């Protein structure tokens, strides 16, 4: 009569987000299978391009982007043993920070490669989704460059 009750409770909504000009430009690029960055006030090419400069808070030019290569180098990685709902893969995979050639900062995404092959400094490239729609999932993941 006194057992404390509990029950499953879930919260779900398909959020509809307006991207604004900068994120919109970056995602339009992904749809065309191109990766863009932007030069910030310190001269760094930042990928993905932030809407506002970290130092000055000024809006960065969404119409003056810098295209970077879809290939680059792993600057850090971690292994994801038990993937969770919504993550890029349902089987164990690696998260990676990748500095694409032409960029000064790293992009975060999944890396699909055998665990023993993965190391900081390894060369990887974007694996594009079969169908691109203007979403971060247009990059399916990174994969090793042979």
């Amino acid at each position, binding site marked *: 009569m*006194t057992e404390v009750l*509990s*029950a*499953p409770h879930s*919260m*779900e909504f398909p959020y509809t987000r307006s*991207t604004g000009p900068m994120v919109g430009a970056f995602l339009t690029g992904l749809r065309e299978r191109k990766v863009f960055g932007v030069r910030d006030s310190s001269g760094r090419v930042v990928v993905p391009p932030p809407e506002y400069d970290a130092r000055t808070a000024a809006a960065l030019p969404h119409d003056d982007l810098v295209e970077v290569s879809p290939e680059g180098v792993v600057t850090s990685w971690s292994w994801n043993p038990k993937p969770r709902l919504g993550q890029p893969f349902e089987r164990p995979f690696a998260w990676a920070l990748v500095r694409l050639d032409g960029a000064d900062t790293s992009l975060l995404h999944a890396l699909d490669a055998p665990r023993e092959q993965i190391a900081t400094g390894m060369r990887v490239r974007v694996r594009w989704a079969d169908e691109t729609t*203007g979403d971060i999932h247009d990059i399916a993941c990174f994969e090793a460059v042979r």
Partner: protein
Amino acid sequence: MSAADGSKPVKGIVTPIRLDYRYTPGAAQSRFLHGLKEGRLLGRRCPQCGKVYVPPRGGCPMCGVEFAEEVEVADTGTLVTYAVVNVNFANRVIDLPYISGEVLFDGSDMTSMVLVQGVSPDEVRMGMRVRAHWLPRDEWDYSFTNIDYVEPIDEPDADYESFKEAL
């Protein structure tokens, strides 16, 4: 929203978000829900101010102390105030309009929100005496919806002074 066709620049995306939890109403409310499963309204009394709360949450919200003894309250009461609702919402299908009432069950010092039936929107009055209409016993669950609705009973209305405190 997201421009799937190739021409226009992207202006929007859709990001579905789902989170799953294990929710517990806590000890005090669980006791109350066990009571409902047996067709009883088990309130709790505050040791400091002596008020009876139906349903009890964690402790007395006015005094910030744990509740003391349990107090069973009647399933008859006074309709303190109400809204006639013409807006339906996702997970509840009732024909509109319906009356959402705040009922002060006899013995409780707190109103409970419950559906009012058996009276039309233009006859319903603040102060009406009402009784709970329970679902059939075999449909009882750990939920306030065991009380399907309250309906008027043949008693004179409570006078305003007696329930205006609970507004």
